[in-house]
């Protein structure tokens, strides 16, 4: 399998922060992986994702996405990425259709292809009947589903999901996970997934990395990671490695 994302000795320290948010982090994500990035609050996940998305650059190290860097070709790099933020990053006063049409255009999509794409995704995620309803009137689960569609409209090669199922009911959660698995299997979409739902991560991801204090603690195939650490689940591995200390005090 080819490497899609190659992170080499990346460090990032915010101004006035006592320690680096990301400290000499190196890892690779293969094409077609469902890669779980786990870690306690304040471990550096958000900083890492922000750098991967090209929001800001690292103090040192390099990030390659399909051989490209944000420094050398930011536009092409960003075109490869789809992002589903933890927040419902939609305009509440607009309908799902209007939101997706706008975001699709921002990715450079247009015309009937875009409209068909939106209809198809809304239909798969059970939102066809609510297409022209304002987002403000949607339930939490419905908003999450539209939030997901907004990130996959342009068929990205790398989909970054930040807590995609937080605060939703079991049905919505299942619909989202099923759709993501389908995208991975049918379109070969690589997924970078962060969550605090460790059981969900265990069942969903085929590869997991755990970071803490900005450093990579461990990574590997999900099952191998459980076996290597003589544990029953990823949650056990996680607690064994990261301990019980609060990180966000």
């Amino acid at each position, binding site marked *: 399998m080819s490497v899609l994302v190659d992170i080499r000795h990346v460090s990032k320290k915010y101004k006035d922060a006592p320690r680096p948010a990301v400290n000499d982090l190196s890892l690779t994500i293969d094409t077609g992986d469902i890669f779980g990035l786990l870690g306690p609050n304040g471990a550096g996940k958000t900083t890492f994702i922000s750098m991967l998305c*090209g*929001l800001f650059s690292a103090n040192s190290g390099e990030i390659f996405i399909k051989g490209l860097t944000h420094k050398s070709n930011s536009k092409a790099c960003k075109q490869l990425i789809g992002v589903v933020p933890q*927040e*419902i990053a939609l305009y509440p*006063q607009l309908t799902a259709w209007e939101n997706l049409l706008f975001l699709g255009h*921002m990715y*450079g999509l247009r015309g009937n292809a875009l409209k068909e794409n939106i209809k198809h995704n809304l239909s798969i995620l059970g939102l066809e009947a609510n297409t022209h309803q304002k987002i403000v009137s949607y339930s939490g689960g419905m908003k999450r589903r539209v939030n997901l569609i907004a990130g996959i409209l342009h068929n990205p090669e790398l989909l970054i999901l930040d807590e995609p199922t937080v605060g939703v009911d079991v049905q919505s959660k299942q619909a989202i996970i099923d759709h993501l698995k389908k995208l991975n299997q049918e379109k070969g979409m690589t997924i970078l997934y962060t969550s605090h739902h460790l059981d969900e991560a265990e069942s969903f991801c085929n590869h997991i990395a755990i970071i803490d204090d900005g450093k990579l603690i461990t990574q590997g195939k999900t099952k191998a990671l459980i076996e290597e650490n003589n544990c029953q689940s990823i949650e056990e591995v996680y607690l064994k490695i990261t301990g019980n200390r609060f990180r966000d005090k």
Partner: protein
Amino acid sequence: MKLIYSIYKEYKVLIRDKAGLAITFIMPTVLILVITLIQDTTFRSVNEASVPLLIVDKDNDSLSHTLERSLEGSKFFVITKKQLTAEQAKTEIAKGHYFIGIVIPENTSKQLREKSSNRISKLMNSFSGDSTAAVEEKQDTSTLRVQLYFDPITKKSFKTTISNSIERIISQIEMQSMVQALNETMSDNFPDAKPTKMETKPLVSLSEEYASYNNSPIIPNSVQHNVPAWTLFAMFFICIPLAGNIIKEREDGSAFRLLTMPGSYMIVILGKMITYMVVSLIQFSLMLCVGIYILPMMGLPQLNIGNQLPVLLVVASSAAFAATGFGLLVGTIANSHEQASLFGAVFVVILAAIGGVWVPTFVMPEIMKQLSVISPMNWGLEAFYGIFLRNFGFKEILPHVVKLWAFFLVALGGSFCYQKYVRLK
């Protein structure tokens, strides 16, 4: 295409935000109506037909009647006649019931006629060579007194203006009385003559007009000041919804998503700017319509926008750019809605105050006049004054337009630098 959809999105968001729309359009309309009405009343109390005046007429003869008619004819006063003592009249004025009181003592007309007659007789005698009569006649140097009382709050300049007006009317009456006495004396001396009536109207009159550029006949008034002033205020007040829009996108993760898209965030910002600029121009047009059509319905003068429409559009667009640039800067720097609302509102009010929106700069103290030139609202207002009152062309308003554009570019540059070097660091 991206830009068009970005503008379309902003339009949809804006059109569905009823509270935001109310702030954007209703607030400035109400402000213009209320402030113009209030200021117009203030202007009228000093300038036009509403100075309350008390006349105590103990004379009830030609002088008092002519004086009253002349005062009425000036359309400067609301006249009330009362039979009071001088002391009572003074008390009425002191209480603030009237701005001015005129007490005309008993027999003033009769004494004026006698004095006029005496002076004319003396003059005629001196011509006829009867010098002894002139010498023997006791010199009458006393003057008749018409008492004026002024409210203590009256400004000195206003008091002088009123005194001069009344004095001029009395001088005319005096002259008429002298001419009358001369006519009578001449009739006595030349019983067969049939003299024509002497014209007593002034031989020299003043021709007044405002020295406006390009022969523009527009007269400044509260409407000509308040409509452009409060329109500019409203245009700059747009910084609050615009900043709120930017902060909301940042808080709900939309900005994060847009920043991860290829080259999209700048387009989104451009879309916002264009949308809010159009809103500013709609605001401007609406306020002009209020000045032209609504204010006259309320008894106020009609707004005259001069005849330099293209120049007016250039100034309005420049002011709209400056206002949106400011909104962008506030939205980028502020960390929360509360910060943006407070900072934006207070800053706009300060800019308005020093820029001459509330109180025109020409009545400001010298130090404030000098300070006013730092406010972009002052640049816009001066440009509008130029177009409305002086019929200025593009060349004359260019310095103001350049300053507004410079403000916009500095604000834009500041917000991009802050976003790049502070927010994304």
